[in-house]
Every structure is written in structure tokens, then in C-alpha cells.
């Protein structure tokens, strides 16, 4: 029995695919290292210097050999590139049916909000067998949300939303690490992912239900901040936000923008004039925290998406 593990836990759909790639790369590494080591050993012993004045036969080189050891590694590299890139793209695009969870990082803690309302710190409860999409941002420096057992990792960058997703395949408690150096408390910015059976997770959610859902909190904030005075319905000062998510709108400077999470965040913090409306919206930078912005976005999204005709897929 080894005193240390040789293999990390394998607890997500991606970790299986990832491990296959890893084994392939390891096999190549072991093969070529063994080849070079063996060659060095054999040559060093077989062709050792036998007399002080020995001058060996000179060989210039060999074009055929050069081509062989250029082309074979090149082909292997193509295989690795294609395999790894496909897997990366798969890992970058969350399934449309994922459950969304919001993460705000700050020095040195992870703040998690579930759309249903529960909030956690340095802990994330998720159901097994359900794809979870994390929408993440940071309040200060760059952090990184890494879960070795799921083989996932993504930088959490201030000023933008980054996403990653996973589908847990086994229940249990798994390490959550901050992998991007973030200052003094970097190594204390750790937490746990609790993967629960689906029914247990449902019970956990209800037990946490004293918290209000994000959209409801967002609506309260929306009214508190006075957003409703211009945006409750389309008026002279601003458009109604009902169904605005997913629309493409035209800005005063002629650009068109897709209304998504990133755009909504920018519109709250650093509003730019939209075509057809006066440039009167003030910035809310400093008045709302990153958590609250996410609540506002959740509320705006709860107002519905674009009209049906936009969706082209049946």
C-alpha cells in the first residue's frame, strides 16, 4: 500500500475523457524517454573510448533519418493537437440545459449563489448527474476556480464573466482550490464541492429556503435603486427590460450588441447610450456589489427572453 495516491479522484463526466487523453500523453512520454535513455546507455557503453588516441569513423548525418525523426513526432503532435483541442472545446461549451450557479471570488473566499436563493461561502452543494454551469466573476484580482476531481479549471477575472461547467458522476466531498496566485491568503482560498444525490439535494435546497430566490432579491434591488422609474415599461428615458435578454440592440454610436450577461453587467456599471434614447442613465459602479449585479441580471432574465420567432431551432 502506497502512502500517497497515484491518481486523483475521478468524479465528473469530463474527468473520464480527460484521463484517457492523459494516459495517451503519458504513454508517449514514457516511450520516447525510454527510447532516448536506452540509446544513451547502450551507446555510452558499447562505444566507450578504448584507447586515449582513438579517433572513431566519422559520419556526416543521414537525411532519411532526419526526415523520419521529424515527421513521426510531427504526426504524433497532430494527433495530440486534434484530440486535446476537441476535448477543450467540449469542456468550454456548457450544455444548454445546465443548472446555473453564480460564483463571486474575492480575496480570499468563494461566494456562491444558487438561483433558488441559497448562498454559501467556500462551499458548493450540487446534485449528482446534472450539468452545472458556473458563471463567475471576481471583485478584486484574478482567481481561478479549480476542482481536481472534476479536472476543471478556469480563471475568474475581475470585470468579466467566465464560465465553466461539469456534471458530477459520484457523490462526495471534493477539493475546490484557487489556482491563480491571488496574494497573501492564496493558499487559504480553498473550499469544498459537495456532490449530493438528487433527492437529498432537493431536500437541502428546501431546508435553505429562508433565503429568497436571486430573481426576487434582484427585483427588490431593482425597485430600491429606482431602475423601475425608467425601465418598468418603455418610456422616453429608457426601454422596458421585458424580453430584452437575447435581443440584439443598436447603440448610439452605431454598434450592435447582443444583450447577454456581460452586456447587462456593463450596462449597470458603465452605461452607454442606446439608439433612440437620451444619454441619461447614471453609472451604478460602487453602489452595487458583484453579487447584487448578478441578482439584478437574474431578475432581468426572469422577465423572459426574446419573442418566439427568434428561436430558429424547433
Amino acid at each position, binding site marked *: 500500500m502506497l502512502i500517497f495516491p497515484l491518481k486523483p479522484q475521478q468524479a465528473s463526466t469530463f474527468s473520464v475523457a480527460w484521463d484517457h487523453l492523459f494516459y495517451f500523453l503519458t504513454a508517449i512520454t514514457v516511450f520516447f524517454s525510454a527510447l532516448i535513455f536506452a540509446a544513451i546507455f547502450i551507446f555510452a557503453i558499447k562505444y566507450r573510448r578504448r584507447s586515449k588516441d582513438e579517433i572513431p569513423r566519422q559520419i556526416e548525418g543521414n537525411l532519411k533519418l532526419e526526415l523520419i525523426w521529424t515527421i513521426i513526432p510531427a504526426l504524433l503532435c497532430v494527433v495530440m493537437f486534434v484530440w486535446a483541442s476537441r476535448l477543450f472545446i467540449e469542456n468550454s461549451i456548457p450544455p444548454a440545459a445546465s443548472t446555473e450557479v453564480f460564483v463571486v471570488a474575492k480575496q480570499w473566499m468563494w461566494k456562491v449563489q444558487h438561483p433558488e436563493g441559497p448562498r454559501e461561502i467556500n462551499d458548493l452543494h450540487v446534485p449528482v448527474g446534472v450539468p452545472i454551469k458556473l458563471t463567475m466573476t471576481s471583485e478584486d484580482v484574478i482567481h481561478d476556480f479549480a476542482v481536481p476531481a472534476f479536472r476543471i479549471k478556469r480563471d475568474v477575472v475581475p470585470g468579466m464573466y467566465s464560465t465553466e461547467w461539469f456534471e458530477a458522476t459520484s457523490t462526495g466531498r471534493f477539493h475546490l482550490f484557487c489556482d491563480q496566485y491571488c496574494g497573501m491568503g492564496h493558499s487559504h482560498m480553498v473550499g469544498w464541492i459537495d456532490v449530493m444525490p438528487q433527492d437529498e439535494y432537493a431536500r437541502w435546497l428546501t431546508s435553505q429556503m429562508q433565503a429568497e430566490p436571486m430573481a426576487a432579491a434582484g427585483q427588490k434591488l431593482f425597485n430600491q435603486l429606482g431602475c423601475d422609474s425608467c425601465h418598468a415599461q418603455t418610456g422616453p428615458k429608457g426601454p422596458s427590460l421585458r424580453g430584452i435578454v437575447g435581443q440584439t440592440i443598436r447603440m448610439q454610436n452605431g454598434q450592435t450588441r447582443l444583450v447577454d450577461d456581460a452586456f447587462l453587467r456593463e450596462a449597470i456599471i458603465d452605461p*452607454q447610450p442606446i439608439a433612440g434614447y437620451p*444619454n441619461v442613465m447614471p*453609472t451604478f459602479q460602487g453602489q452595487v456589489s458583484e453579487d447584487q449585479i448578478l441578482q439584478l441580471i437574474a431578475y432581468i432574465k426572469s422577465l423572459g427572453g426574446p419573442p418566439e420567432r427568434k428561436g430558429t431551432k424547433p
Partner: protein
Amino acid sequence: MPEGPAPALVAEQFDDIIQQRDAASFGMWIFLATEILFFGGLFASYALYRSLYPAAFAAGSHLLKVAYGASYTVMLICSSLTMAMAVRSAQLGRRKPLIGFLVLTLLLGAAFVIIKLRWEWYGDYLEHLVPGVSFAPQGEALEVIRRFGAPLSHVALFMIFYFVMTGIHALHMVVGVGLLTFLIIMAYRGRFVSGDFNTVEMVGLYWHFVDIVWIFLFPLLYLIGGRY
């Protein structure tokens, strides 16, 4: 020891004055390649933000005065001409024109730096257009920014690039003025006119390079965004 036309002027690691001159001028060109990448980091950042915030950068350029930029350009082009003529005089071994052209170049360069600091930058400071020191555009400046619908922080970003890019350029000008002063003193003592003109040539290359940087800074900072 190799036979050279003026052995005392050839450093001991070289065979002759021609190898020495070749090495010196090649070294200078490599140094300029380094300089291209040094300014390149700034140009790349500028390009990125300009493509992200076109309105703010257009607004920012309206806060600068074209008259300054254009007259600097003319001054630098004139100084490049006088510098080229100075190198030519040194090649031909003419001491008096050499000193004359060097002094002209020096005057134009010094005028550039002085006008930039005393009038343009100081003016920007009075108008509160210096991010990190005092950035609070008022009056006409604020109106321009409003007209472009540009957020203040992005305009500040433009102004940062304006100050950093022209500042580092001006620093290069100051170094150039120092080098010219040195050249004038040496030329006065009779150097550079007996085949050993490569020092003048190298300073010339540097001077022209600094001119080229300005040739790009002028449109990128003062003209872009349209004056119409």
C-alpha cells in the same frame, strides 16, 4: 597589427576602420530593432484599446490641439534633414558645416521638448486632463466627451496612452539632445572628419528613428477620430 588609414582611430579588436564602421552601424540598426519592440508594447496596447473603445479614443484626440502635433512634425522633419546633412558633412570631412548642422538639429530638438513640456503638457494640466494627477475635464472638453458619448474612464485611458507614448518619445528626444551636445563638443575639437564619422552616423540613425516614432504618434494621437 593591421594597417589602417588612421590606426589610432581603430579599436584594437577590429582589423581596420571599415570593419569597425560596419560593426558600429550594424549594432545601431539592431539597437533600433530593439527600440521598435520597446515602443511596440505601447503601440499594441494602444491598438487594442482603440479597437475596443473607438468613441472614447476619438473624443480623446479632440482634446489635443492639432496645431501642436503638426508643428512638432514639421520641426522633427526639419531636424532630420539637418541631421542627414550633418552626417554628409562629416563624411566629406567638412568641419564647419558639420558643426553648423549639428547645432541646428540640437536647437530644433530642444525647441520640441521645451514647447511640449512648457506649453502643451502644462496646458493639459491646467485643463485637468492628466489622469493620475488631475483628471476632471471641464467646459469645452467635457462637452466634446459628452458629444461622443464616451465614458470618462475610457477617455482617461486615451490620455494615459497620450502621455506615456509622447512622454517616452520626449525622453528619447532628451537623450538625443544630450548626444548632439556631445557630438558638437567633439566636432569642435576636430573629431569625425577624418573617416571616423561613424559616431555621427549612429547618432543620426537614432535621431531619424525618434523622428519616425513621431511620424506615427502624430496621426494616431492627434488626427484619429476625425476632425470633421
